């Protein structure tokens, strides 16, 4: 079945229309349907491709931000440049896919683009958090894509769920390199923030509407993962305090090795992942 056949009579004698097909009163209607459905499937494929590309770039943005050593302050220039480059690439993809997601198509392909959008939200939310110490509001996310694509509250919440995982990784690294909460206000803040987010998430009534609710079926799974993340940081903190008490006052075990790697070296941190 050649795809380039125009609707109506096939021109190429490659396959002769049989008697049956010539008398078929429905064929022209179905040829029309074929063209319409092909258009729909092609657009769907383009959106899926864009979603995957956005996901890949967003992951790179997250890795970049994970390399920062000093939270709640602007990124070092080198990381900031890297982040901005990725960010612009994502913006570019979004502006290209945007025409496929207008008017009636906005929600038609929402499920296809949603994965990429969630990852993107996770990335810019993590960046926002590490530079300002705050949770990015939905409106700021929407402005960041210049309203070229629809960002639903559902996407936003699912993206923030994943943010907890990134905060956890960053916090664990911080505890390993800086020590427990007693010594460092920023480590304490990170733990507080994680707990605060957890409380907010647990306060959300996500069960409304059942599995087909605004957030879909994923939400219960993500809630479990999020809780585990918070508990990991709590346990790490506990470990530092318990074992730290065995050590002589003022003796900091891990810092000697890490101190050298602080400014720019990042290899060691990557291995932790």
């Amino acid at each position: 079945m050649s795809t380039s056949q125009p609707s109506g009579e096939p021109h190429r004698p490659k396959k002769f229309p049989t008697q049956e097909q010539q008398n078929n009163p429905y064929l022209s209607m179905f040829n029309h349907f074929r063209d319409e459905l092909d258009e729909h499937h092609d657009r769907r494929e383009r959106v899926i491709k864009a979603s995957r590309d956005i996901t890949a770039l967003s992951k790179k943005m997250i890795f970049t931000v994970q390399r920062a050593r000093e939270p709640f302050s602007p990124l070092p220039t080198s990381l900031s440049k890297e982040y901005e480059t990725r960010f612009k690439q994502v913006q570019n993809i979004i502006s290209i896919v945007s025409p496929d997601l207008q008017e009636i198509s906005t929600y038609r392909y929402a499920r296809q683009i949603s994965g990429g959008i969630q990852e993107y939200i996770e990335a810019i939310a993590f960046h926002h958090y590490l530079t300002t110490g705050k949770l990015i509001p939905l409106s700021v996310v929407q402005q960041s894509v210049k309203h070229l694509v629809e960002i639903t509250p559902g996407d936003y919440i699912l993206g923030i769920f994943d943010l907890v995982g990134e905060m956890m990784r960053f916090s664990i690294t911080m505890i390993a390199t800086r020590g427990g909460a007693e010594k460092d206000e920023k480590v304490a803040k990170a733990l507080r923030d994680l707990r605060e987010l957890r409380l907010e998430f647990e306060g959300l009534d996500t069960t409304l509407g059942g599995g087909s609710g605004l957030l879909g079926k994923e939400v219960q799974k993500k809630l479990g993962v999020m809780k585990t993340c918070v508990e990991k940081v709590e346990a790490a903190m506990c470990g530092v305090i318990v074992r730290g008490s065995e050590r002589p006052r003022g003796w900091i075990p891990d810092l000697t090795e890490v101190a050298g790697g602080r400014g720019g070296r990042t290899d060691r941190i990557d291995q932790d992942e």
Partner: protein
Amino acid sequence: MSSDNIYAMVDPEIFAAVQEQIERDSQVKEDIREALKKIDKEVRSITSTLSRVHIVSPQHVIELTTTADEGFKRLRDSLQGLINIVKDYPYYKYNGIWSRDIQNVTFLVLFQGWLQRSYAPGNAENSLLTIEEAGGVLGIPVNLKTEDKFHLTIEEYLHAVLSLVEELTRLTTNAVTQHDFLRPQMINRFIKDIHSSFQVLNLKNDSLRRKGDGLKYNVKKVEEVNYDLILRNLIPTGADEGGTEKMEDAKGPSEQQE
């Protein structure tokens, strides 16, 4: 800026707003389901009316189909009820909830249309209502590509066509029971046309594809009934016509597999 409110990470407004969205969303879905219950009620009543075609004799079928008109009128009203609920929201935001119901509704429209055209004296060649005609009966637009409004999609229509094929396959057997040997021939012709029409579609691996793959079994089943009728000379209208039909039957499937 970061040192100012270093303790307050989450603006509680953010989560409150999302909670509100979730609640509004679930309320809309609740309303939609209520409206669908009304539609479903009419669907069942029309189905039970039209299903009598399997047991009444052919000369009463036209009369039978008109008794469903009242039901279709109520169906249009309850469909309008659904539209009133969802018209302020993007069409594809919630359409997954009612898509199946609209398929059922469209099937009934196609079924009634097919019966009326095929049992009418001097039966029409073309007994399938087009998507536009089906939309016209239901009072809704079809296949909208930019305007964000309630409409009948191509996929829903095609699902309905497949349901019609299934229903007519059953009718083939039951028509024979009524000693109506004309209908099996018409249905045979019709299902073959639909089958070869479906071949021109490039379907993805979705529900339509899976349902469409079942078409060949319907073709086969109806062919077998026709074959038996011809073999026993139960089809009176000229042995010639029956003969050519049979020839086509024999070569049809192998060609379509190419």
